[in-house]
């Protein structure tokens, strides 16, 4: 347990020294600020850019527009930046050989994998929460009505679980291929396979990609919470599976 805590601490130190903490914080902070701003600003911007005498009718921007921006920007921009940072989690340390000293001194390999998952999970949770809280505060400031809080909680937790799934995939990719690029390709492959399988409607309802693409239909009430539970369940199971597999693969890995 002491080794575990120490390794989590070491991960955070590494994140701050390699500026990953800074990058995540700023990216997610900025995305949080941009969501309500873009939603509110777009009609004014279009009006200013249109030639004189030309008008287009745009509805008054609503709370939903702000959340639409949130569920568009975070999965696209945010998750891509996060995935690039997640890519190096395990692969870099294996390829540079920095783990050898610790492991020969008796640190268990499972501890390495689980502590890395914990540290990066906390980091992802905090940056995502930062983005969400900023968007929530400004949305409440600019609009009087608000979105249904139960549905919002469901939609928001979807992206969060998907992030955790990505971290577990990065760990498995890292322990399989022992390099950052292998890990990145593995994460990309996982997402692409999900999209391909998603073409089959019966399977598509279970794919974790639903957690980052159906948020708005959930929030607008077009899709029940039950429909969101299926991908959520798959994502949680896959995360556990990936973690177990990467522990198993990493134990057998020649360093």
């Amino acid at each position: 347990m002491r080794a575990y805590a120490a390794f989590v601490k070491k991960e955070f130190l590494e994140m701050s020294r390699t500026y990953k903490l800074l990058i995540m914080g700023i990216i997610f902070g900025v995305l949080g600020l941009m969501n309500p701003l873009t939603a509110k600003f777009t009609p004014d911007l279009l009006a200013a850019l249109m030639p004189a005498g030309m008008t287009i009718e745009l509805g008054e921007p609503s709370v939903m527009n702000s959340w639409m921006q949130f569920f568009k920007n975070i999965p696209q921009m945010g998750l891509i930046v996060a995935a690039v940072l997640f890519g190096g989690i395990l692969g870099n340390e294996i390829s540079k050989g920095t783990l050898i000293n610790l492991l020969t001194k008796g640190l268990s390999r499972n501890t390495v994998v689980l502590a890395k998952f914990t540290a990066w999970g906390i980091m992802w949770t905090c940056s995502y929460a930062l983005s969400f809280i900023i968007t929530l505060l400004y949305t409440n400031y600019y609009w009087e009505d608000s979105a249904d809080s139960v549905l919002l909680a469901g939609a928001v937790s979807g992206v969060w679980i998907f992030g955790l799934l990505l971290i577990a995939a990065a760990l498995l990719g890292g322990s399989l291929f022992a390099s950052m690029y292998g890990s990145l390709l593995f994460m990309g492959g996982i997402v692409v396979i999900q999209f391909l399988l998603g073409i089959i409607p019966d399977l598509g309802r279970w794919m974790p990609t639903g957690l980052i693409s159906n948020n708005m239909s959930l929030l607008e009430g077009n899709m029940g919470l039950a429909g969101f539970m299926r991908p959520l369940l798959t994502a949680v199971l896959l995360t556990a599976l990936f973690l177990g597999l990467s522990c198993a693969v990493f134990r057998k890995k020649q360093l």
Partner: protein
Amino acid sequence: MDVLIEYLPVLIPLIVLEVALALTALIHVLRHPNYRFGNKVFWCIFVVIVQFIGPIVYFAAGRGEEE
């Protein structure tokens, strides 16, 4: 002008973040003259001119290893 004032509460933190990020990156560029690619002048201009993306690309890809 009214429009601008309406957006100030969200614009100010955005500008502060951008300036803080650019400054951190600029100081790092000047203090650590080893880069994976590019040179000092290139990175100085890049991190200051290209908003948000510039400093992030620098920290993620352009920053040299510390020996």
